[in-house]
């Protein structure tokens, strides 16, 4: 058991556990907090995979921006109290069944497709430093990159428009 494996196991355990807790927490605020921890652990995975750039972006976007949005929304709606009525038992049972089913199927698929994956070979080439990524992003993916920015702009406008209070019509 190498150190790295231990780190991976720990991180994975944190990820899964917090994900579960996110769903099962009765209080949305707690859910949000757990989700932040989950995202941090995923960022840890990114670091483990040696992609520092993504890890940082991930923390900024998810843990920073998105989660703040979530928290604000929750607070705005004043949902910190537990008000939710649980779903009927049959629905919950169905949810669990489908969870198991989809797990099983996806895992089965990946096991099935293992021969395709093949052996892992390192060439030692640099492919994920910020420098390389930057080049790829701004050469090859220049246009999508710009589109992404337009998307964000549109999203911003849309958000403003949606959350603006409509005038009451008589």
């Amino acid at each position, binding site marked *: 058991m190498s150190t790295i494996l231990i780190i991976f196991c720990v991180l994975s355990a944190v990820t899964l556990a917090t994900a579960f807790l996110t769903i099962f927490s009765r209080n949305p605020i707690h859910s949000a907090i757990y989700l932040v921890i989950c995202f941090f652990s995923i960022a840890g995975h990114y670091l483990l995979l040696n992609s520092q750039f993504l890890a940082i972006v991930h923390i900024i976007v998810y843990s920073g921006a998105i989660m703040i949005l979530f928290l604000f929304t929750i607070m705005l709606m004043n949902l910190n109290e537990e008000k939710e009525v649980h*779903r009927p038992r049959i629905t919950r049972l169905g949810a669990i069944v489908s969870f198991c089913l989809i797990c099983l199927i996806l895992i089965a698929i990946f096991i099935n497709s293992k021969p395709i994956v093949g052996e892992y070979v390192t060439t030692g080439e640099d492919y994920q430093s910020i420098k390389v990524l930057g080049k790829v992003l701004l050469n090859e993916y220049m246009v999508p990159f710009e589109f992404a920015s337009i998307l964000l702009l549109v999203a911003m406008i849309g958000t403003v428009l949606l959350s603006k209070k409509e005038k009451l019509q008589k």
Partner: protein
Amino acid sequence: MNTNLALLLLLAPFLGFLLNILFGSRLGKTLSGIIGTMAVAVSFAVTFYFFGAIAAIPEGIHISLFEWIQISNFKVDFGFQLDQLSVLWLLFVTGIGSLIHLYSINYMYDDENMHKYFAYLNLFVFFMITLVIGSNLLVMFIGWEGVGLCSYLLIGFWHKNQEFNDAAKKAFIMNRIGDLGLLIGIFILGMLFSTLDFATLKTAISGATDLNMYWLSVAAFALFIGACGKSAQIPLYTWLPDAMAGPTPVSALIHAATMVTAGIFMITRLNFLFDLTPDVQNIIAIVGAVTALVAATIGLVQNDIKKVLAYSTVSQLGLMFLALGLGAYEVAVFHVITHAFFKACLFLGSGSVIHALHGEQDMRNMGGLKKAMPITFATMLIASLAISGVPLFSGFFSKDEILLVAFHHNIPLWVVASIASIMTAFYMFRLMFLTFFKEFRGTAEQKHHLHESSPLITIPLIVLAFLATIGGLISLPGNSWLNEYLTPILPKLATAEHHLGTTEYILMAIAVIGGLVGIGIAYAKYIKQNAVPSEDAAITGFSKVLYNKYYVDEFYDAIFVKPINFLSRFFRDTVESGLSALVFGFGKLTNEISYQGKKVQNGSIGLYLFAFVLGLCAIVSYLFLAQ
């Protein structure tokens, strides 16, 4: 030259038709009548030219104008064939046609639509000429159907009366039943011999060694059905008496002299075919004899002057078919010609009477017209003598020959035909006596206006009566000009023997005596006993059955017309809505399914998501695990 003249022959009446139909109302009545008459007279004149021309060309003149219809195994040209038979027919069609046109100028002068009358009449002559001179069965069929159409138009000429229109419609439809038969015959001949041309057909049939006799018989029988329709034979005869709804000159031209003889013309034209099918010939003979008898019996008790003549026509046509069935085509043709003369004369005479009585047709309301209308009386008497078979008049020769032939072939048929001719003599003189003798039985108003018709009416009568008297000369027993003339058409005439033995004289005597007996009975009853037929309601017993024409119309109505109409209503009301409901049923089914399916789409996002996940599982597992 011949082509142009043939076209002139054909198109002169057509031109008359066009002029009258397009400009008739502006031309004025007299002019329109003159145009109509002249158009036919031109054809008559041209016919004389051809009559002379074909004397030099025994095989006839064949003219092909253009290619008309194309069938996979043959082509049909639009062409003419002017040979002895067609010229003979043309002579009396255009000849009697001209006379009747002339007659009509006066007869129809009071009618507001006189120009239309002449237009239709000209069109009729045009189609009749087409029928007669067509070089193949299909061109003949144009004329065949065309005369049917004109007959429809002219029977229903007084179209404000729906009963007349019914009669016109009936005539057209009954004719069409026959036409279907004719078409079927044409199809079979076309398939068997790959031609419809009379000349080629003749060579093909006479020259062939391995003929398919079964199909040949079927074809002949089908053609005979066509002839039945046009020439009013059992079972398709009922339209002809009804056709008397038309103006009387029309009855004379179409329903006595020309159109109804088309069936005889066609069978004579195709004699080479019918000669090969003895079974069909037997059927023709029997149908002819039975028709002659049945129509004669009905004629015995009719009171409408034109109805008597109509049944007499049916009866005489039956005799002609009898002759055809016995293979004596020349005899049938002979009778057609003499019949055309005396029957046209009779019809025109009755028209003169009706004209004088302002539309009265019931003989019970006539009588004693002899003095008022001497010329009409004289001409009609001559024609009646002719039709009754009194010696030296034309009918005697032709009828006698039919009876002779019948006697030689089949005694029972001879008996039937003889009885029919005795009856003919009886009812014709019944007609004469009731109309012209004794006292006038009509209203005083009518009596006051009684007068002899104008020369335009009497001249044709006189001409026809003359012809009815001397018509028999064309085929005297033992020395027949007609038989010689027709030899190119009927080759076996060349070898036939013409001798008159004791049997023949005895038969002749029997026929003459029979005819005189018929006249005598009529004289005894209507002159001596002064009998007048009773009112409709008072007719009883077998006479009532006869008076109602054996209830054949009612019978046809019950088994054909009513069921078809019932079926039509049934289809319209039940089947149509049923089928419609079936189609709508599919729509309703879809609606119902969709209504049930709609319940799944209850708007719950949870359910949608659940379905989505399940669907995802299904698709993914199918894509990756199924292989």
